Structure formats: structure tokens, C-alpha cells
């Protein structure tokens, strides 16, 4: 091993020597070579730099500088003297101890340059400098995982947000409370994102809390101009919030337009009853008009450049969820009107061409079947019906006759691109719910996490 190391060193030294010989004209005095790892983890004990000298006479004293985006005393420790000496044909190793902080700072550079030899300015150009990257080992607490909104108890209490790490090994409940020592309000319905910010929508409290999406530190609140807010989508610096208005009035529903620079509601777009989930396909904003306490059957198409309604598309009753397929079609599940309305209608899956805004295919369930929670990954379309998960093909869709697997009563489900299904089990709605993780390659339940009361939505973070 030692032999190998020395061999390697000799090889490098020879190489360096050879190359520095070529640059002889830029090196009026000694031939020096600097060797160091180009990337060092913040967790390592020190940055180690070897300087070898292959010409000149006696012992020479060198002065160096350290520059870069890293900071002395925060990221590493500088010795008191910024000098070192190297005998001819000798090697000196400099050690700069690293400071392993807990800050999320990203990767930083450490630029070591030799500037003087025996008090004479020395410009070795590229040969006299080395740039080392100090790799940050710290991440934000709520980065690389899933955010789960928990509605919380209706009226008496508050909702919360849970964080599940990507490897599904741990869960952190009520992260907003942990960070801000406050609550998000009553019925935490959903979250929308804009760059580094998350917008947490509390329905009964008529409040959106703006937080840093990775630290969950509160930045602002939007409390005016909302009435029963449901979902949030950001498009180019403008937020869109679906609002039911007075749930007992069918004609006062609207999309609130929010200036995200000031976090104020600057306008509204009136829509038909019960706007719920929204989806932006880089061109239009699609709003599923689920109907609130009533029944509706429209998708509103909004042009975000003019903030006006382009058109409405009629789908089945109670459009609940939407997804885009790879070819750009919009797929919508309408649950159908429930039996208690006295006019039960079947669930319907609609396929919409997002260029023409026309429904190009319709798949109708039996009248007492009310599917929900559509998800699409590649060619696979998943949905939920009566405590079971079903799977169809986007390119040749027919309503599947048998389920993929059965589960419990789900309040929502979210399919990640690596074929993991994250399902919300709200239990009895009066105690902490669970997140169920299913592996869709085997259709088996792999993990269960206890979260807050009534988990309702899941987001990648």
C-alpha cells in the first residue's frame, strides 16, 4: 500500500516536474508543483496541499494567499503565518483544518496561490495556484422529501404540515410549529410553490402562510381578499388561488390573483361554482370546478397573460383531479354526483386536447362508481375507486375491469415518478392519520408513517 502510494506520488511528481519544465520561462526561480484534491468534503478534517520543489538551491521561503468563496475562521482555519519553506528536491505539506458547520451554504471554493519566494514576488500563473472545492454536507431541513398537508380538526384547532424524507425512513410532524412556534390556521388544505417559497392555504382561516419551502420559516401572510381558499398555483410571479366564496352561494366563486412580490390580492377572476384544483401546462391554467357543496361539471381555462377566462370545458359531474400525459393531453377524473344529491351520476374520465380545448375521449363508469385521485406516470394512469387502486394505459385507455390492489379508504393519493404511491389514510378523521407507502412494482405496502389529523395532499419538495 505504502509502496503504491509512493509510486503514485513519484508519478505525479514526475508529471508535474515535466509540465513545469515546459513552463520554464514563467518561473524565473524555482520549479514548484502544487498537488491537492480538487474536491474536499466539509466533513473531512483538513485541506491538504503538497508543494514540491525540484530546482534552485537551499531552502526557499514562500508566501501564499487564500481566496475563494469560502471564509477563513468559518469554513477553515488559517495558520498564523502565511509562509512555508521547501528545500530543494523536497516536499512540504500544508494542512488547513476544515470547520464542519451546520449551515446550508452550498459548495464553496478555496483558492491557494503562492505569491512570493524569499520575499520576491513570484508569479507562477496557473502552476502557482490551486482551486479546491469544499463540498457542503448540509441540506435544508425540509429538502429532498415530501410535504404532507394535514387538514387538522374542523373549527377547534389547526392543521399542520409533515415532512417525509426521500428514503422514507423518517417523518417530522408539524414542521411549521417547530420552526415558527405558531400554527398555520384551521383546515390546512393545500400548498402551492413559487421558486423557493411555499404557500400554505388554510381554508377556514382564510389565510395563506408564505414560508421558505426548505426551512419552513415564515416570510409573510396573505389574509385579505380570500374567502374559503382551496388551492394555489404560481405562474411567472403571479399567484392564483381558487376560492369558493360563500359556500352557500353558487355565484360568488372566484380565482384570486396575487402579486407575489407584495403578497397582496390584486384582482379576481369570477368562475362557476366550487373551483378546486388547478393545473398549469406552461400555456393555460386549468381549474377543476368541482362544485363546492354543490355539483359542477366544468374545467375553466384561464389565460394567465390576460387573466381572463378563455373557455370552459364540460366534463363529468364533480371534476376532482387532473393530470397531464406525456403527449400534453389533460386527463380529468370527475367523480360523478353522489347518491345523497338525489340525482346520482357516474364517474367519468375525460381526455382533453390542450391545443383545441376539446374533449377527445370520454370513459364512463357505472352510475354508482365514483373514482378519484388520477395520477399519470409515463404511459400508466392510476386512479382510486372504492378502497382499491386501478391502473390503465394512457395510450390505449379502457376502464380496467379489475383492480391493481385493494387498500383502505383513501383520502388522497400521489404517485411519484419512481413508481411509489403515497396514499393518505385519514382513519376516523378524529385522530392522527397515516401515510401509506406502496411499491407499485410489487403492489405491496412497504411503510406506514403516522402524520397529523386528516392528511389530504402530498407534494414533492
Amino acid at each position, binding site marked *: 500500500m505504502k509502496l503504491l502510494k509512493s509510486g503514485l506520488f513519484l508519478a505525479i511528481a514526475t508529471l508535474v516536474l515535466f509540465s513545469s519544465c515546459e513552463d520554464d520561462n514563467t518561473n524565473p526561480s524555482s520549479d514548484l508543483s502544487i498537488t491537492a484534491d480538487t474536491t474536499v468534503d466539509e466533513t473531512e478534517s483538513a485541506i491538504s496541499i503538497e508543494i514540491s520543489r525540484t530546482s534552485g538551491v537551499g531552502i526557499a521561503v514562500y508566501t501564499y494567499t487564500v481566496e475563494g468563496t469560502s471564509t477563513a475562521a468559518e469554513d477553515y482555519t488559517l495558520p498564523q503565518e502565511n509562509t512555508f519553506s521547501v528545500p530543494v528536491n523536497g516536499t512540504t505539506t500544508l494542512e488547513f483544518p476544515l470547520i464542519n458547520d451546520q449551515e446550508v451554504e452550498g459548495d464553496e471554493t478555496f483558492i491557494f496561490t503562492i505569491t512570493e519566494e524569499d520575499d520576491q514576488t513570484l508569479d507562477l500563473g496557473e502552476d502557482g495556484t490551486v482551486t479546491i472545492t469544499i463540498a457542503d454536507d448540509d441540506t435544508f431541513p425540509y429538502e429532498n422529501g415530501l410535504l404532507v398537508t394535514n387538514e387538522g*380538526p*374542523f*373549527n*377547534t*384547532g*389547526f392543521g399542520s404540515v409533515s415532512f417525509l424524507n426521500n428514503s422514507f425512513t423518517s417523518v417530522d410532524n408539524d414542521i411549521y410549529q417547530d420552526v415558527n412556534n405558531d*400554527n398555520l*390556521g*384551521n*383546515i390546512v388544505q393545500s400548498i402551492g410553490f413559487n421558486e423557493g417559497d411555499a404557500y400554505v392555504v388554510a381554508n*377556514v*382561516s*382564510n389565510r395563506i402562510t408564505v414560508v421558505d419551502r426548505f426551512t419552513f420559516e415564515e416570510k409573510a401572510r396573505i389574509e385579505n381578499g380570500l374567502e374559503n381558499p382551496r388551492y394555489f398555483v404560481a405562474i411567472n410571479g403571479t399567484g392564483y388561488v381558487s376560492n369558493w366564496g*360563500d*359556500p*352557500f*352561494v353558487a355565484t360568488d366563486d372566484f380565482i384570486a390573483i396575487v402579486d407575489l412580490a407584495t403578497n397582496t390580492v390584486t384582482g379576481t377572476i369570477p368562475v362557476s361554482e366550487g373551483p378546486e384544483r388547478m393545473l398549469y401546462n406552461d400555456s393555460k391554467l386549468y381549474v377543476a370546478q368541482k362544485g363546492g*357543496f354543490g355539483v359542477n361539471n366544468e374545467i375553466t381555462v384561464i389565460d394567465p397573460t390576460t387573466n381572463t377566462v378563455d373557455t370552459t370545458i364540460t366534463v363529468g359531474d364533480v371534476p376532482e383531479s387532473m393530470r397531464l400525459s406525456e403527449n400534453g393531453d389533460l386527463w380529468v377524473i370527475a367523480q360523478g354526483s*353522489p*347518491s*345523497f*344529491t*338525489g340525482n346520482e351520476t357516474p364517474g367519468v374520465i375525460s381526455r382533453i386536447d390542450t391545443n383545441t380545448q376539446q374533449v377527445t375521449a370520454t370513459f364512463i363508469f357505472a352510475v354508482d362508481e*365514483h373514482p*378519484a385521485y388520477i395520477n399519470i406516470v409515463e404511459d400508466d394512469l392510476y386512479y382510486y375507486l*372504492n*378502497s382499491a387502486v386501478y391502473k390503465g394505459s394512457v395510450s390505449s385507455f379502457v376502464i380496467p375491469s379489475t383492480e391493481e390492489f385493494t387498500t383502505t*379508504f383513501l*383520502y388522497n393519493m400521489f404517485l411519484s415518478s419512481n413508481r411509489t404511491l403515497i396514499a393518505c389514510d*385519514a*382513519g*376516523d*378523521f*378524529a*385522530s*392522527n392519520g397515516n401515510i401509506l407507502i406502496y411499491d407499485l412494482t410489487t403492489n405491496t405496502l412497504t411503510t406506514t408513517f403516522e402524520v397529523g*389529523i386528516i392528511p389530504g395532499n402530498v407534494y414533492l419538495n
Partner: protein
Amino acid sequence: MRKYCYVFVICLCLLGTSMCAQLDSLQLLPEVVLSDVKLRDFSQGTTKHTVTDSMLRASASSLTQALRQESLIYFRENGPGGVSSPSLRGTSAQQTAVVWNGININSQLNGQTDFNTIATRNYDNLTLRSGGGSIPYGSGAIGGSVHLNNEIRFGNRFENDIILSYGSFNTPSGHYKSTYASERFYIDAGVDYRKSDNDFEYLDTDERNENGAFENTNLNLNLGVKIAPRQLLKIYHNTFLGDRNFSGTLTAPSDDGYKDRNARTLVEWATLSNKVDSKLRFAHVFEQFEYFPNGLQDTISTLGKANRFTANYDLTYRFTDKTSLKGVVDFTSVAGDGTNIERSTRNLFSAVVLWSHKVNQKFSYGAQVRQEVTNDFDSPLLIGVGGEYAFAKAYTLTYNTSRNYRIPTFNDVYWQGAGAVGNRDLLPETSWQAELGHKLSFKNLSLGVQTYYIQTKDLIVWQPNVQGIWSPVNVNSTEHLGGELNARYDYSVNNHKFSLVGNYGYTSAINTETGAQLIYVPKQKVTGSLGYTFRKWTTFYQFLYNDEAFTTTDNTDSVAGYAVSNMGVSYKMLDQQKHKVNISLRALNIYNKNYQTVAFRPNPGRNFLIQTTYNF
């Protein structure tokens, strides 16, 4: 339906014959006529606590206020004046029956009585009967029953009673009752009114109790006529009008408004004799609620109502002066309707037999059976036994065991809309229970110790079905195990009178599937009061402690336990035979404690009430 009619005709015939049989009896009618004899004569082995007229008038105007300090009931009260749901021995609000002059008045729609919709000052007494009472009192008497009674008291007099009070948060209240009686005739009429802005500050915040105002009016009319030497006609009537705003919570604002319109009328024709008492009763109970999501002034509302007609024949036969048998047949027809309640009618026929035997001075026992038949569901056969044995003059052992039930309500069965649907296949909730009690009484000290066990099954729980629609199902079962201790000590020397009263309750109420304590059932409750009277002055100090109560079914969250204390002083300004004037001042929550009985609903801090009463 036709079957019931036949039975009823037969009962009427029975009534006729029994009345004829007593014509030769010479028994005179009693001066004081109880509205509910079952409570006294057919409740062996149960624990009863009576709050008298004077206590009711002195302290309270809602049933919540009257019983919070007087009993071990936990009130899940949505702030002062808001919906108040009792939990007695860890049972639900639907498992506590409120019985008005012998008639069970729990809502046909939601199965419970909101204890803030009962004005207590027009009743002559109020009795809490702990433990199962479904056999005499019907659905819901599982944890116990609360009895509101008016007495009809003959004898020449004309009396008037006025109470005026004013409390913090702009809370005026008034009560007037006038009673006229002769040897053959009795009538009383009363009105009780209470209004409050109820906009108290939430302690430790800069918020107030928004949208909490309420205004309640209560009217009573009671009438008794001796129509023949042994025949008595009685009429009881009560109307309650409540206009309330429902306040929000710390996290959720509210604009809700709510109107209660309740009217109860009972007509009773009684024929009494040495051997046989027969009573024919007709009752009409009307209830209506109207919910205004945007406040009482708004035009948008949802409504629910139920009209109940009851005809009831009650025959008591005394074999000897120690043994009596009572049979009651009852036909009830209820019509329910509402914005979210399918128009529907429910007919119930029930037959009850109660047996009472006082074996000797020491030992008495009773046995009871009830069967109900209805078009909606199968009702269980209920049986119960109870007994009391006095081992010594100072010590009595009591025991009772019974099966009880709570029937599915109109909401449970006929709800239609707003994300929910009723279930036609529900069974009644049923319970078995047993209670062992010890009563000790000495010269100045009385002590009561009760231990009980209640097992319930087929509890009706609303939960989402596979389609996500909320619907009730018979799922849970529970076990309740608890103990209660009551003590009273009275002492007087010269003109100084002291009284010390204490109650302690321990309640374990467990969901048998999860092993978790039921929500809003604190394990412990303590109440205590110390009273001192000297000549015209009376002062009191009251103490109440409620243990932590869980708010989630997995017991992961709770409202903290708390202790609150009240103090008061009253002075008899005038104490003549014909004119009595009393003035009192009370301070509630004297230590300004910030506490909640329902999570996120703060209660008022220190507040005051001044009250004058005038009798003439």
C-alpha cells in the same frame, strides 16, 4: 300501525274500567302532586341528586350552569351560551336523557339535549338520576337522566317571584313567575329571559369572543284542576325561543347563527285511589332548529324540525301498601322534516312494567322490563333490577343493574345531503350496566360512594363510507368503570351556619377496540363548595377541577385540566312573610384563569353578576 291502534283502544278501555272501580274510594288528593312519580317510587338502587328550587333561583338560568357545579357531569360547552353537550359517567350527550315532567325531550333529530337551551328557573326542582334509566324513561338514559319537574301544589295563595340580574359582557336577565292556587285549582305562569353580548376577552390574547351574542326566552305555564273528588287534570307547557350566534374559535372565525324553537305540552288526566292510580297522558313536543351560516339576519338557512305526539297510559296497582305494579303503554308518532332530512314518520309503541316491593323497613327492591316496537329498527328487550338494604340507620347499600339503549335518531336514519347520508340499517346502541352504592348519614355528615360499570356496544359513529360519503354505522363498543364520592357536612352554632359539599368522580371510559379513553371525558372531576350564613348574610366559595380531556380518538391531543373558583355574597334586605327581597353579588372565575372545556374555545376570565330577587 293498525296493531298499535288496537292496543291503544284496549288501554283506553282499561282506563275506563279502572276509573269506574274507584268511584267508591274516598281517598283525597294530595296537596302536592309530583309530575313524575316513577322517579321517587320506581328507582331503587339508583343515585339521585336533587337541586331545589331555591338553589336554582339563586344561581343559574341554564341547565349547564345549574349542573356544572352541582354534579360530576362534564360539559363540552362551545363557549358560554353555545351548544352544551353533557357527558355523564363518560357516556355521550345522546346517552344522557333530559326528562321534562316525565317526558323524555331529547331531540328526535340529533338525539341530545343542548343544556344551554333549558332555562332552569321555572322548574320547582331538578333531579339528576345517575345510571341507566331507559326502562322508565326511554332512549338515551344510559349515563343517566336529568329530570325537570314542576309541582302542582294546591292551597290558597297568590305569589309572585321576580328576579333581575345584570352580568359582565352586557348580560341582563329577568325572571317573573306568578302562582295562583286554591283548594281545587292551581296555575302558574312564568317567563325567563336572558340576553348577552358575550364578547369577553380571550385571556392572554388581544382577541375577543366574536359572534357570541345570544338571547333566550323561556315561557312556562302549569295548571292543575281537581275535576272530581279523585280526578285531576294537569296541563304543563314550556316554550323555549333561542336566538344565538355561535362564536368562532381561536383558529376559526364564525358567522353562524342558530335559532331554536321548542314547545312542549303535556296534558294528564289522573284518577287516584288507594289501590289504583291511572293516568292518561297526551304530549306534544315540537322542536325546530334553523342554522344561518352567515348570521341570523341573512336569508340563507337550513332547517330541521320534528313534531312528536305521544299518548301514554299509566296504571299503578298497589297490592298492599308495600307492593305496587305499574304498567305503562305508550304510543308515539314522530314526523321529521328538514333541509337535509328526508320527510319521514316514525311510530313507536312501547310497553313497560315496573314492580316495586318494600319488603320491610330495611330492604326494598324493584324489577323492570320494557319492550319497544317500531317501524324503523329492532329494539332490544330491556330488563333491570335494583335494591336497597339498610344495614344500619346510618348505612344503606344500594345496587342496580339494567340494560339500556339509545335509538338511532332522524339524522342517523334519514339524513340526506351535504356530504352525508343516513343509514336505514342501524341498530340501537345498547348497554349493560351495574352500580353499587353506599349511603352513609350521620348527624351533620352525609356520604355517598358509588361504583359503576357500563358496557356499551353498537355505538353509532359517523364515518366516510367507501365512496367518501359520511354515513353512520354501528361500530364502536366501550367500557366505563368509575367511582363517585359525594359528601356533605352541615354545622351550625348560634346564628352561624356552615355547609361544606364535595364531589369527586373518577371515570375510565375506554374504546374497547383501541384501548383509548373517549374524547372529552376527563378522568377526574372535583367540585366543592363552602357556604356560610350569618343572620341575613350568606357567602359562598365554589371550586371546580376538571382533569385533562383528550380531544382526539388516539389520545394524542387534549385540552388541559383546570381549576376555577367562584365566590359570592347575598343579603336579605327584607325578610317578611309577604315580602322578601334579596340582593346578591357573585364573582366567577375569581383567579382569572384562562381555561377551555372544548379545545380552542377560551372561557371568560373573572366576571361578575349582580342579582336581586323579590317575592311577594
